[in-house]
């Protein structure tokens, strides 16, 4: 046992002596949270729109005002003709144009129906969709108000409740994703590199010749990264609660237990990688290409897995962070207990056991 602590202490020396890596380890989660929290967001704000108002009547003016007042839009000076709109789109100075035909208000009053043209720049289809949805919402609001004024005999008023995330914050989506990404990245990358480094330096031979149990070598290498990962997790958690205003509804204990599970899965993957290569560069490449990209793609926090074609959806099932992501969202945002996530947990346990088994099996006690 004393030998084990000697070893763990040495691993901590390695971690703390390597300033650059240490900075990366602690900087990464913070940078990710700031990036995803403030820079990269799905919400579109202050999109430039133009309104072409051939009607210029009370109704069109009121709608125009509503558009101008919303956060999503920034009203540009009103252009007059269709031709000018086209030119503005080509130049890329507007994303959306709203055109009121002449007699908009009178049509509305006389025929109970009026048309409005919404033109969007669909070279970015997602953005175009989102923007036209915003316009639709504003129009629906306006109709609602008019309907209330005229007192129709019956009407359906949907009362919409956004469960768990009433403000529709993007953060509920990406914070659990960033947690998964950071844990996987640090654990897989750092363990594989630190084991391969011993091989490269020739110290692995010396350790294997010593009476020290080779499996303890591996376990003690994992300890510092396990501790670091838990620390990072706590930083992310605190940042998301105090910076992003995210709720934490569920059990903290359960959250850390499930996170530890993912960490162990990632550590054993790192071990697996280190077994199959002798150079730090290769280990890093495999870890980055093999872990970071699938984790980004298939965790579900960047691209919804439900929208993917069948083969990709199947592939996503073997990515551990996908299951962790579901688990964390359930615990953090929905406040669910273990009974709701036992299936995902079981899958994660199964994966961890499999990775551990394979990597220990493959670990070479002898060099040849």
């Amino acid at each position, binding site marked *: 046992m*004393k*030998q084990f602590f*000697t*070893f763990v*202490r*040495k691993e901590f*020396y*390695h971690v703390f*002596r*390597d300033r650059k890596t240490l900075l990366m380890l602690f900087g990464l989660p913070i940078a990710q949270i700031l990036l995803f929290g403030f820079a990269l967001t799905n919400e579109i704000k202050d999109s430039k729109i133009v309104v072409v108002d051939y009607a210029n009547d009370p109704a069109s003016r009121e709608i125009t005002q509503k558009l101008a007042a919303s956060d999503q839009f920034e009203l540009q000076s009103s252009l007059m003709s269709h031709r000018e709109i086209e030119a503005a789109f080509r130049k890329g100075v507007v994303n959306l144009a709203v055109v009121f035909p002449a007699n908009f208000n009178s049509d509305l009053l006389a025929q109970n129906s009026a048309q409005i043209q919404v033109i969007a720049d669909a070279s970015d289809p997602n953005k175009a969709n989102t923007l036209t949805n915003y316009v639709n919402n504003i129009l629906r609001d306006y109709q609602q108000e008019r309907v209330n004024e005229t007192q129709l005999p019956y009407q359906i008023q949907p009362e919409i409740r956004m469960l768990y995330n009433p403000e529709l914050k993007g953060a509920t989506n990406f914070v659990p994703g960033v947690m998964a990404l950071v844990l996987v990245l640090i654990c897989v990358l750092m363990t594989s590199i630190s084991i391969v480094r011993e091989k490269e*330096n*020739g*110290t692995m*031979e*010396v*350790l*294997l*010749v*010593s*009476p*020290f149990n080779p499996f303890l070598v591996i376990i003690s290498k994992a300890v510092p990264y396990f501790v670091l990962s838990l620390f990072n997790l706590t930083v992310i958690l605190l940042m998301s609660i105090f910076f992003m205003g995210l709720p934490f509804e569920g059990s903290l204990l359960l959250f850390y237990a499930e996170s530890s599970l993912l960490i162990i899965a990632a550590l054993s993957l790192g071990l697996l990688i280190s077994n199959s290569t002798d150079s730090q560069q290769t280990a890093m490449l495999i870890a980055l290409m093999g872990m970071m990209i699938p984790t980004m793609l298939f965790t579900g926090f960047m691209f919804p897995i439900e929208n993917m074609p069948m083969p990709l959806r199947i592939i996503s099932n073997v990515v551990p962070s996908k299951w962790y992501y579901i688990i964390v969202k359930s615990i953090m945002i929905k406040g669910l207990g273990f009974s709701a996530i036992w299936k995902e947990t079981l899958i994660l346990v199964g994966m961890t056991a499999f990775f551990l088994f394979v990597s220990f099996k493959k670990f070479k006690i*002898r*060099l*040849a």
Partner: protein
Amino acid sequence: MQNVVIKTDKLTKKFGDFTATDAITFEVYEGEIFGFLGANGAGKTTAMRMLCGLSTPTSGEATIAGFDIYKDTEKIKANIGYMSQKFSLYEDLTVIENIRFFGGVYGLSDQEIKEKSDHLIDLLGLKEESKKLVGSLPLGWKQKLAFSVAIIHDPKIVFLDEPTGGVDPVTRRQFWDLIYEASNRGITIFVTTHYMDEAEYCNRISMMVDGEMKALDTPTNLKKTYNAASMDEVFFELARGAKRQAD
């Protein structure tokens, strides 16, 4: 009759069709400095790895300090020290941390580690440098330190795999002083080398050519047998027939 500490019988290692070491049989006596010579690719490192338990032989027998290399690897490990071809200390740890770490790995008590590290630092004249990172030391000092750490647990045998590669002659001489000192304490030294002047320092030397052991005797006797003025000539005489290209 001297005590035998290493005894091999037709020890063979094959990698596929390639026979790295071919049925080598020899004995090493307690306290002697045994030189293990051969060109690059002659099979020295493979043979040494089998003796250290890093590699399982394809066939043949061997005992190290009386323990069988197939069955008693754990007991062997406790009785040997090893210094690898590559520099085998941690560059990002200080001198004293390295000593403590390897002392700890070999299961020494805190008291023993303290005494050993004080003694070592004194012996190597590293008092000023004890808190410096090993990476900042000159290569010669590193290698002397690596050797001292390899025998920190007073093993019966220490295996040195080309310990003096890339070191200047003066430092090499100092390194050999350390080897003699260890040898006088009864530690058996098993050393591979390229340098023929170092071969002269050994009590007995063996010559590997193409995986086979072509000669085994004292340097003086070898020179007599091959009618050579120096070990260099003995080496050329023996290695001339080598079919394997140096890698």
